[in-house]
């Protein structure tokens, strides 16, 4: 049972974690340095052995701790989820220890998080991009990355040489995208409706 006693026992003697109040499941804040040991404890002693999800949230360039890694563990015994928040200490080159030695499932999740946010996982056996191609220069889920994308060279250099093609941003005209993600939609709308260009007339540089 996940009750107050359970939480109290879990917190005792561990000043590197603190509890956060969330309605849906037990949520703990954990310092990156103690993450691996704490996860081993959760897996071996507390039956939270199924890593269901590992991802990150980008809180924007102004935030103190911009990147926050979020883990969800599931216990088959307690029939309950547990959420771990890990704040990445450095905004410029975010980095936390890799969990792939504790949960093999973390391997791909961490590759995806690295691919999308540029968070480095130290001691990861194979930290390379998983959804984008290997030489892709940006981290698309960071907040400053534009929805339409940024022009980049074609992944296949030999094809690019012959055709002169590159990867273009997607046309936004007529799309349903109308908001920046924070703030009211009606205020955000004029910004997205960039009518200075269409599919027919090129986007001004």
């Amino acid at each position, binding site marked *: 049972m996940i009750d107050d006693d359970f939480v109290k026992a879990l917190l005792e003697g561990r000043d590197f974690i603190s509890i956060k109040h969330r309605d849906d499941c037990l949520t703990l804040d954990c310092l990156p340095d103690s993450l691996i040991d704490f996860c081993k404890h959760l897996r071996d002693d507390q039956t939270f052995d199924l890593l269901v999800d590992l991802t990150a949230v980008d809180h924007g360039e102004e935030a103190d701790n911009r990147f926050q890694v979020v883990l969800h563990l599931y216990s088959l015994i307690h029939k309950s989820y547990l959420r771990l928040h890990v704040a990445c200490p450095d905004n410029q080159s975010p980095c936390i220890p890799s969990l792939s030695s504790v949960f093999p499932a973390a391997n791909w999740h961490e590759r995806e998080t690295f691919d999308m946010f540029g968070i480095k996982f130290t001691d990861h056996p194979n930290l390379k991009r998983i*959804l984008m191609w290997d030489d892709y220069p940006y981290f698309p889920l960071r907040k400053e990355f534009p929805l339409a994308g940024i022009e980049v060279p074609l992944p296949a250099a030999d094809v690019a040489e012959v055709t002169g093609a590159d990867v273009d941003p997607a046309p936004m005209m007529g799309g349903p995208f109308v908001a920046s993600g924070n703030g009211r939609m009606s205020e955000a709308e004029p910004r997205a409706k960039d009518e200075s260009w269409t599919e027919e007339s090129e986007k001004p540089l």
Partner: protein
Amino acid sequence: MSTTVKEVQIGDVGAQAAAHADGERMSLNVGPSHPTTHGVLRLLMELDGDLITRCEPVLGYLHRGDEKIAENMTYNQFVPYTDRLDYLAPLANNVAYAITVEKLAGLKLPERCEAIRVLVCEMARISSHLLGMGVFGMDAGAWTPFMYTFTEREKLYTLFEELTGARFTTSYTRIGGVARDLPEGWMSKVEKFVDELPKAIDEVEKLLTRNRIFLDRTEGIGTISKEDAIAYGLTGPNLRASGVDLDLRKDKPYSGYEKYEFDVPIGTKGDCYDRYLVRIEEVRQSILIVKQVIASMPGGLWYAEDAKKIFAPPKEKVMTSMEELIQNFMIVTEGPQVPAGETYFEAENPKGALGFYLVSKGGGVPYRLKIRAPSFCNLSILEKLVPGHMLSDITVILGSLDFVMGECDR
């Protein structure tokens, strides 16, 4: 004079010869466009004769940036994108997404809405498993079962079309309800379908379940141990076939699943054959659930009535009443209003646990929406599972894992 007969499998001889012939390794690409990969999965393999020594899955060929897209549109606008995750069970994805947002909004839905959602989820499961079984048979060399299962799927699609207006991309749920009530007489058609379905499943079972060739190709192949299945985060039928009793419909009931009686089939060995058996039985259990839902379908509304800032009012009221017109306008322009916070919800989808991790900073647009795709996690075990198998086992292993790249790459 007595003769001794020694059973020799041809594949073994080749593998042994290759193992001793001071191996020159060959690399082989399967995919990204190859019939066994069911989409655009690419497997980079290293072969020693016919024996696979290394396998590296390469993903991302179908990556559309769904999570980025979600951050730039209102909650309801994202519903059609969920159709395109696991596009073999779009209704189940719609429901899982809607429940996530409703969970954060703290919305309580009327019983009828929940029952409709269970009904469509189970129909989606039947549809997805029918495809999974049919194609699995085809991967193992049996064409005919595929024809039987696709005939049944076609009937299901006709029912989906009548309900949602689309065969494939259903977009049936809205945040706080469903798009429309069940059409008149629709439930009796569903009932007729589920009454006839067991006969078709029996036919498929006659063709496959005790088929010698099918057994030879699937039994003992692609065995996943209980420990590995948990360590690699497998979910759904693939996890249950390995003997782990985890079904979120039972363990974390949502949308009123606790009201229905059904069994959760569990495998013993975790090989390809077990995964097939689990799916067959799940279809039979889904039929039972569908029948129970139809028998006990409650009356009332199919949307949350008190959710004025979340669910758009019925169209006839929008056209005639000022207040409803404003309400509709606000929901369309601003999006359903969801409080700030975070939540994680997983639904037991046909392919496994489809999870959504939603972070909201208030307003009508998600701040972050992470899609935890079951196919993505299920495929991560390939690196460990495939080495040691023969090249010809690849088709069977991939077929038995029953994945969808649309959901894996997002």
